[in-house]
């Protein structure tokens, strides 16, 4: 299958960076968002982030910003979605919102179109159930910032076909990603393990076992992690960590995912991490 045109739905941080990354490698990109302010932010973000891409990726060094603009068309409707070989959907992580979008997509795309759900927590199998051909639905959990993070956690839904997995793998490798294929289960591998690790680190702080800086130091120097779990939690946002733990807790009904009371208290207090200036560590805003 020859993949040339990609429809990217949702021009938030992830969708915008996915569009930029694809454009740098010559794909035709249709970037759709219903919010015109989001679209303005996306244009600004692309011109800024393009410099970052050039800074770290030598293979796109010869590309210009004009080349990138030439590859991306911005839209608020589905008029050109019939041309899309692949749809990469990046809207908010909310089931009702996703359901609405997929009901629309099934009406406007070609029967051959493949669908990638960019998510860290929504069931790919459940999204597949919304579509006429669930074999063509797959998960692609991109990491932030997309253009410089090679890893993509690819999630095979219950009905995702081998062909869809193969096409997805080759497609991702074509723009220098490293796909890791996992099966569909709540939180996949990333969120399931990361959230549990972060939560247990918070329990350790709450129990007075160690100070946050020392917890992170152990992971950095002892296990070679680039960032400690608590600095990672601050970067993601403690409210997001709390929400993710609740989703996992609800999915598995396993008490090991219960959010640590210290985390709940910090979220209640407005200590949300880097974005609020204070979490487990202090930040200069």
């Amino acid at each position, binding site marked *: 299958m020859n993949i040339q045109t990609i429809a990217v739905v949702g021009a938030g941080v992830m969708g915008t960076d996915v569009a930029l990354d694809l454009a740098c490698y010559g794909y035709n990109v249709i970037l759709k968002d219903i919010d015109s302010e989001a679209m303005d932010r996306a244009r600004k973000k692309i011109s*800024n982030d393009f410099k970052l891409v050039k*800074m*770290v990726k030598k293979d796109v060094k010869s590309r210009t910003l004009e080349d990138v603009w030439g590859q991306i068309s911005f839209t608020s409707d589905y008029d050109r979605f019939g041309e899309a070989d692949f749809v990469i959907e990046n809207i908010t992580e909310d089931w009702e919102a996703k359901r609405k979008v997929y009901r629309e997509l099934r009406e406007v795309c070609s029967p051959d179109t493949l669908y990638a759900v960019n998510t860290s927590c929504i069931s790919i199998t459940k999204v597949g159930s919304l579509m006429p051909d669930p074999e063509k639905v797959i998960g692609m959990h991109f990491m932030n*910032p997309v253009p410089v*993070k090679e890893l993509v956690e690819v999630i095979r839904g219950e009905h995702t076909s081998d062909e869809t997995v193969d096409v997805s793998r080759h497609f991702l490798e074509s723009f220098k990603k490293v796909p890791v294929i996992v099966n569909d289960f709540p939180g996949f591998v990333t969120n399931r393990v990361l959230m549990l690790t972060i939560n247990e680190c918070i329990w350790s702080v709450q129990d007075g076992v160690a100070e946050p800086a020392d917890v992170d130091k152990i992971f*950095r120097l002892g296990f070679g992690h680039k960032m400690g779990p608590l600095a990672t939690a601050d970067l993601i946002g403690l409210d997001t960590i709390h929400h993710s733990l609740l989703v996992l807790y609800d999915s598995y009904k396993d008490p090991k995912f219960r959010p640590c009371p210290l985390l709940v208290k910090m979220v209640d207090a407005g200590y949300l991490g880097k974005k609020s200036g204070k979490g487990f560590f202090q930040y200069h805003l």
Partner: protein
Amino acid sequence: MELQAKVRSYIENNLVVFEENVQFSDDDNIFERGFVNSLFAMKLLNYIEQDFGITVDNEDLDIANFSTVNNIVSLIEKKRSGVS
């Protein structure tokens, strides 16, 4: 010296490690040592362009130019001498 101190202070305020006594020399690669992450690279570029009033051209958009205090200072000085 003042330029060096200003750049160093900006990096120190954006570290992703929070241990006491984190130290790096003016020649240490701040990305390789894990003191900052890739999200910081963009912030650093914007800071350099805005606070020092320079524009980093395509040829200088290389992570190596931003990876140590001394390399950043050299880049700023090169750009400043180029425009004056």
